[in-house]
């Protein structure tokens, strides 16, 4: 089998890692939490880093009027289906397609990924800004606007007594590496096509 096809198939299959490993993690450090609170985000669920962390994050957040982290969100139904379809599609293309289709798959995956990140950002924004009018504590930014408590999309940010870390986890690395392989498969495939011609 051609190298490009193998790369494409393996790259697509690596996405299956998302069904096993968390995609993202948010960790909250504070003086009172020497063992930080944390939450792993999978494509289909939120999971405590340590048992009861989400319950305790909610308890912390209620002081500033934030909503509870929901048990589930609609995305948890959509993401697994989308990823599943892309894996099957990627493998089929890998077997029967050519390098142009490889690129098309990669571009589609990039669009889906961006959409996913945007969706995640919107959820975070809402989570950090949709505050209860009866919030126990209200904080204002220096410019007078209401302080939001949105965790960072990527990176580390201080929010009151907490330091919030938001970073990709193993699942995301499977995704990145998988996508990279499919992208590489396009160039390899192109070279192979040239060599044949």
């Amino acid at each position: 089998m051609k190298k490009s096809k193998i790369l494409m198939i393996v790259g697509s299959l690596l996405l299956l890692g998302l069904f096993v490993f968390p995609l993202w993690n948010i960790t909250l450090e504070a003086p009172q939490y020497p063992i930080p609170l944390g939450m792993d985000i999978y494509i289909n669920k939120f999971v405590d880093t340590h048992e009861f962390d989400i319950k305790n994050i909610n308890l912390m957040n209620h002081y500033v009027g934030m909503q509870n982290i929901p048990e589930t969100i609609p995305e948890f139904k959509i993401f697994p289906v989308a990823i599943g379809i892309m894996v099957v599609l990627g493998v089929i293309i890998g077997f029967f397609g050519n390098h142009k289709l490889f690129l098309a798959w990669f571009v589609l995956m990039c669009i889906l990924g961006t959409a996913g990140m945007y969706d995640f950002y919107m959820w975070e924004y809402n989570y950090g800004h949709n505050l209860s009018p009866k919030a126990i504590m209200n904080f204002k930014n220096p410019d007078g606007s209401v302080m939001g408590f949105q965790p960072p999309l990527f990176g580390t940010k201080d929010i009151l007594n907490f330091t919030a870390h938001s970073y990709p986890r193993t699942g995301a690395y499977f995704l990145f590496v998988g996508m990279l392989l499919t992208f590489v498969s396009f160039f390899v495939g192109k070279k192979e096509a040239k060599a044949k011609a």
Partner: protein
Amino acid sequence: MKTIFKSLLVITVLSMVLGSCGKGDSKKNGALSGNAAERVYVAPGEYDEFYAFLSGGFSGQLAVYGLPSGRLFKVIPVFSVDPEKAYGFSEETKPMLNTSHGFIPWDDSHHPDISQTTGELDGRWIFINGNNTPRIARIDLTSFETAEIIEIPNSAGNHSSSYVTENTEYVVAGTRFSIPYPQKDMPINEYKGNFKGALTFIAVDPKNGSMDIKFQLMMPGFNYDLSHPGRGASHGWFFFTTYNTEEANSLLEVNASQNDKDYIAAINWKKIEEYVNNGGGKKTPTKYAHNVYNEETHSATSTIKEEVLIINPSDVPGAIYFMPTPKSPHGCDVDPTGEYIVGSGKLAAELTVHSFSKMIKAIDEKKFDGDAYGIPILQYEATLAGAVKQPGLGPLHTEFDGKGNAYTTFFISSEVVKWKLGTWEVIDRKPVFYSVGHLMIPGGNSRKPFGKYLVAMNKITKDRYLSTGPEVTQSAQLFDITGEKMEMLLDFPTIGEPHYAAGIPASMIMPKSKKIYKLEENKHPYATKSEATSKVVRKGNEVHVYMTMIRSHFAPDNIEGIQVGDKVFFHVTNLEQDYDVPHGFAVIGANTSELLIMPGQTKTNIWEPKQVGVWPFYCTDFCSALHQEMQGYIRVSPKGSNVPLTYTLDGDAVDAE
């Protein structure tokens, strides 16, 4: 008598001389104090190397310290009520202090001993005896809570307790005061021959630690002072010191000090166990309480048991022997190999050490010197391994470092003496301040001592600390015993009066220490697992409040429809599932303590309002930034009032059932 007096005088003078030497030493230590400070300094955020469990003596409790820092972490309530933790006040814990004499709010806790497997500390449980109303408690070392208390019938002054055998097959409880058996109304001066001393073997379930009296051995009416199990070769035997073999019943300080030698009773418990397993012994009516705390229901139950299996020494020939030991021996300590049994004759000029192998040989060769109540007395010379000559005055207790050395406390000459097993030579002596009782080396009464530190527990402190009126603290003093000579590093005050202690490496306990109780595993019959299910239920004049607490409110927090004369049960559940977020509960005028409730736990207080009005209740543990807001009101109306029973949170009224 005169010669004793003379020798006492000589040794007193000697000890004064030695004492002043000691002072010289302490000055030298002064120059090294920076060094000592470093060795006991545990920097902020760092951990101690060992746990030390010091008995609280007349406080009835067990205190948890760290070594080498000497910092106090927790006082575990065992035999005495503790209003801080609602122990003995909450409905759930009252049964723990039940006995055949009814509810008893206090005892005198003495000798903690950590469970062992193959003679080594395993860190699962710690046992401790209540001396006054004889009981043995088992404390769980994952929750650091008292899990079980068993009363010892036919016993009084439960002092030669609570030592565990090599695999924690048994925890043993011996009576210090002999009493009539069975108890009866009789003249006290008919003590001799009529009083008995019960030695109780309590079987420990290897899976869950549950205690059950296997048998009681009815010994002659001596005082059974202290004990230790055999280990290694001597595993299967138990040794008890006795005094008052004179069987005096009055002015014991004189009348029980007449015999030149008392005995160490050597009990082959394996042999007796076999006899019992084959149907031996006599089931005898009695009454004793067995109290068990269930961690799932967060509640204790007390059962009165009505039968105990009695064994008489004559039932099992060849199982019990007496080893003569000079002058009212106190401590009875077995070295890590199991070969040497140290009897600390508290009025003797030397420290007597018996040999287990010589004892077996003497038994085989029937080297007896008569008998006492049918129990063979072995010839003194036949079991003697050796004696530590002129060791000090008033030896009490001995522990071992696992390197062939023994360390003995001397109450009268106020010192700890290090000596060598086998050669019996004194290697070092250090003064302690003052009048030391017990000492403890972590694992120092097991096959595997951790011979790094020694803790001496002193009965008298006088001028050692800032004074606090006539009543001053007792103290513990920490020695480094890694070198040839002992070095005093630290002294620290203790709770109550520590009689003995047990130490264990922190690494064996800390990883298993519980952080919270899981709410989903809470099987308390009155648990309320969500705010939505909180409620108030009236049953005649009893009102049950199913209340929850979470940062930072109670649910419900407004209750109306209570009447004077009602008996209000607050069943309060802490809904938190976060480490170190307890909440407290207190209501004005309650004739009981606060409740201190750990995450996931339910506790119950009874409140009987006597006055009409609106009365507040609040959280007593500073739980959060909004702790001061964690409060509620309960409205009390006159008896027969028609104010309906309602309970609300934030105005959401729900009529009571």
